[in-house]
């Protein structure tokens, strides 16, 4: 008999209780037979935006967005193209945007009026079906499989849940692409080389697994563009699997990148070092350390920064410190880069 694990944290319980109110309300505001208005963006994948088609759908008890789509496909638009397989939050193929928010159709309660659109950041095949191959290619390129540093000792191998804590969160991923659609950096297209939250969660499954050969993760991390992540938490907000994508996947991956591929983390490491020594953010020092002396040649930009008070050469060159330097060093010393 296994020793009992610690129970869920009080904060998680508090969150559950708060959400319960909202969810209870969302599931109780309509009665069976009431008509809901559903507008679906339909396209053949070649038009730019497609057009919205409106349907009146009778509410059924505890109706999900997927039930509304199924009702429409059976009764009103038999050629509606939408993807789903399991209907129970496992296959992760039915994600759409409902009233501008990414949701898993099988999981989310319907709204009295809702506009359903395909996910963003992936090409539309037809109506609500998107082409997932961009994501698939990225993930395959990471070669996200376990490569052991040591020989496998036989079942069951020594391993604790504490060691697997972050990787185990990543294993809840159903690759539904909600986060990929919600990510504003992915929305910038080719302006950055950011891999996006969903591929990073997939990478995290093995990269954050203590059994994996850490050196072999470096090659994958080098392809992530991970420091383009702006930590806006949009991905976490929409994740139907409740994965703490930023705090327990992307942040630990960034830390790993700083160690294994330090060249990618120049900006982050410089910022950290400056805060640790000076107890404040010093933009001037940051620019110099990241871009080198070459930055001084961009006179117009430097002037602009000076005028707006963004940089202060005197404070930078005399390494002005605040009282926060000592505590900052103490705190940062506790967490590895």
């Amino acid at each position, binding site marked *: 008999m296994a020793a009992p694990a610690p129970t869920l944290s009080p904060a998680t319980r508090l969150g559950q209780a708060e959400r*319960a109110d909202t969810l209870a309300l969302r599931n109780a505001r309509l009665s069976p037979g009431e008509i809901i208005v559903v507008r679906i963006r339909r396209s053949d994948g070649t038009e730019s935006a497609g057009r919205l088609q409106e349907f009146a759908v009778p509410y059924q008890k505890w109706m999900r967005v997927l039930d509304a789509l199924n009702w429409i496909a059976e009764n009103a638009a038999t050629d509606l193209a939408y993807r789903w397989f399991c209907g129970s939050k496992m296959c992760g193929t039915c994600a759409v945007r409902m009233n501008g928010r990414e949701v898993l159709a099988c999981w989310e309660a319907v709204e009295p009026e809702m506009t359903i659109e395909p996910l963003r950041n992936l090409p539309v095949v037809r109506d609500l079906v998107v082409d997932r191959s961009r994501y698939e290619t990225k993930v395959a390129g990471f070669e996200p499989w376990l490569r052991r540093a040591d020989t496998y000792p036989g079942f069951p191998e020594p391993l604790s849940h504490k060691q697997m804590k972050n990787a*185990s969160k990543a294993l809840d991923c159903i690759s539904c692409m909600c986060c990929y659609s919600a990510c504003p950096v992915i929305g910038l297209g080719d302006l950055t080389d950011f891999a996006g939250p969903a591929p990073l969660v997939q990478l995290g499954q093995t990269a954050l697994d203590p059994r994996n050969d850490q050196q072999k993760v470096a090659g994958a991390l080098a392809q992530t563009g991970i420091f383009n992540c702006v930590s806006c938490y949009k991905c976490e907000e929409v994740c139907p699997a409740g994965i703490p994508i930023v705090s327990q996947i992307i942040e630990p991956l960034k830390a790993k990148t700083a160690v294994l591929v330090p060249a990618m983390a120049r900006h982050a490491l410089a910022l950290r070092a400056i805060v640790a020594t000076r107890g404040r953010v010093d933009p001037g020092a940051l620019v110099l350390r990241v871009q080198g002396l070459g930055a001084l040649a961009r006179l117009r930009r430097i002037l602009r920064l000076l005028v707006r008070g963004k940089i202060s050469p005197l404070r930078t060159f005399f390494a002005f410190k605040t009282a926060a330097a000592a505590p900052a060093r103490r705190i940062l010393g506790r967490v590895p880069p």
Partner: protein
Amino acid sequence: MSIRTISTDVAIIGGGAAGCYAALCLHREGIAPLIVCKGLVGKSGASLFAGNLVISGKLLGNTDEEASNTAEFLIKYHNQFLIDQRWARRCGEWIERVYYPELEEAGLYFRRDDAGNVVTSPGKIRSVAANVQGNSGVPFMDLRRKQVIRAGIPRLEETVATALLRNADGAVAGVFCLDVLTGDYIVVEAKAVIMATGYSDRLHKRSTGTREMSADGIALAWRAGAALVNMEMQWWHTNDIAHPPSWQRMQVYPNPMLGSEKSARMVNSAGEEFFNQQEDDPLAFGPYTVQLKALAKQVHAGKARYDGGYFAGFDNCDADEVDRYTTYGKVYRQLGLEFPNTLVETAVTSHYRQGGIDVDTATMRSAVPGLYVAGGVGGHSNGLIALATFDGKVVADGIVADFPAATAKPPAPSEIEFERRRLDDLRGSAGHGPAPVAVKEILRDIMWDKAGVEKDARGLEQALEDLSRIRSDLLPEMRLSNTGLRANYEWLDAIDVANMVDVCELIVQSSLERKESRGPFFRTDFPDTDNRDWLVANVMTKSGNGVKFERRAYDLPFFAPDFERKANLEVAW
């Protein structure tokens, strides 16, 4: 329209546990596999639904008694003795020796506690979970998907196999496919074809079958000349969520919970508890049939219906013990119900088909040369993800042994042409009748009403008449509103419907043939379990335009029932 041709050594139809493992084993042997998957490899089908993983043999400190219990459970409760017990033993040994170590070595995370112990469920039969109980199939199949990608095994995804293609010798030598997203036809030429389309077929109004399921594997194999077995043996889930409809695949798992002495309970409309696995039948590890029998008694007493009016949940547990290792609270919380104090209304759902294509369990050959079977679509055992995986290994071994002698004759051009025309015609369907999706719903209603949980000869005969009317009146009159090629799911529905009608008929005929009740197969006109005459494989083969039945006895080397005849509702299993 042009047809793309791809050649491979072995074509595998299905991207679940059996198909993926067969592909990986063949690849290891230097034989080139190709997976055709109607959905997405590792993301569609039934394998995702594996809640937890059963421990066999002496794994993780299992005692002799626990090892024997697991075998007894599989043979008795899971298959009602309609199983090759020697195959089951081979499978159990392989699970102990190869399956668990291989999965863990590849990276599957068997849930530990903070002290590093693998967490198990207590009781007479023990199980473990991959990461979280209730969700084990997700990381399991995600691992398989990545292993397939890593091996460079080609996949045709969101591509439906519509026909098995035979060559001049009558052997299966290829598969006709439609890429659903592009509308392209693809012919896969292969020296052998493995049918691995899974356990479920979504032929009833309420079904755990996923969206893409329409009994394709059985229909294709039957048309190519394969024999079928025990098609009437349909497994049912007894407490799946009653509302909303999409959640009919979501179960209030009655199995023992990891790290807890308790499990879910079921309560009738009068608030009386009528099933709790831990108290009522601890040997019934996946107690679905035991639950179904308990429910039938409630239905007969007017205290529940098969489509609802009874409730299930964890109000006998603390939230902590449910949440620690399981996903079971997710349904309640998403509905805003107080957990674990609230029960939720549940209903019966058709789940796995125990029967399927008849196979030689030593090699997984079907009766048709070139056609092999792996996993749930076979009629040799009822489902567990470990069994399906074992089949993947056995079929690969069978093909490796046969491979040197495999013919390389390509499929007959006439077969390809026939199928191309059939699909073109379906896309052009312009009758005055309903859309294909509506015909699907009609079929599912008929099966639910007349070939549902409780059946009798009269209802089954009516079902046959209804099905024959659909075949003559509705199928030729189907109408598609869109004849485009891209992601035309209406066209796919039309292809599905033809398979569904055929297989529904075979199931009803097979149900009429078995004149007893056994496990989850309830005949109200033959309520007894009859081990003297019906502890047999109910084998059906084509005979002219009709079917022919034959009974084949099972060997009972390890476990045998202890009665000859008894009312099925009084039999524990």
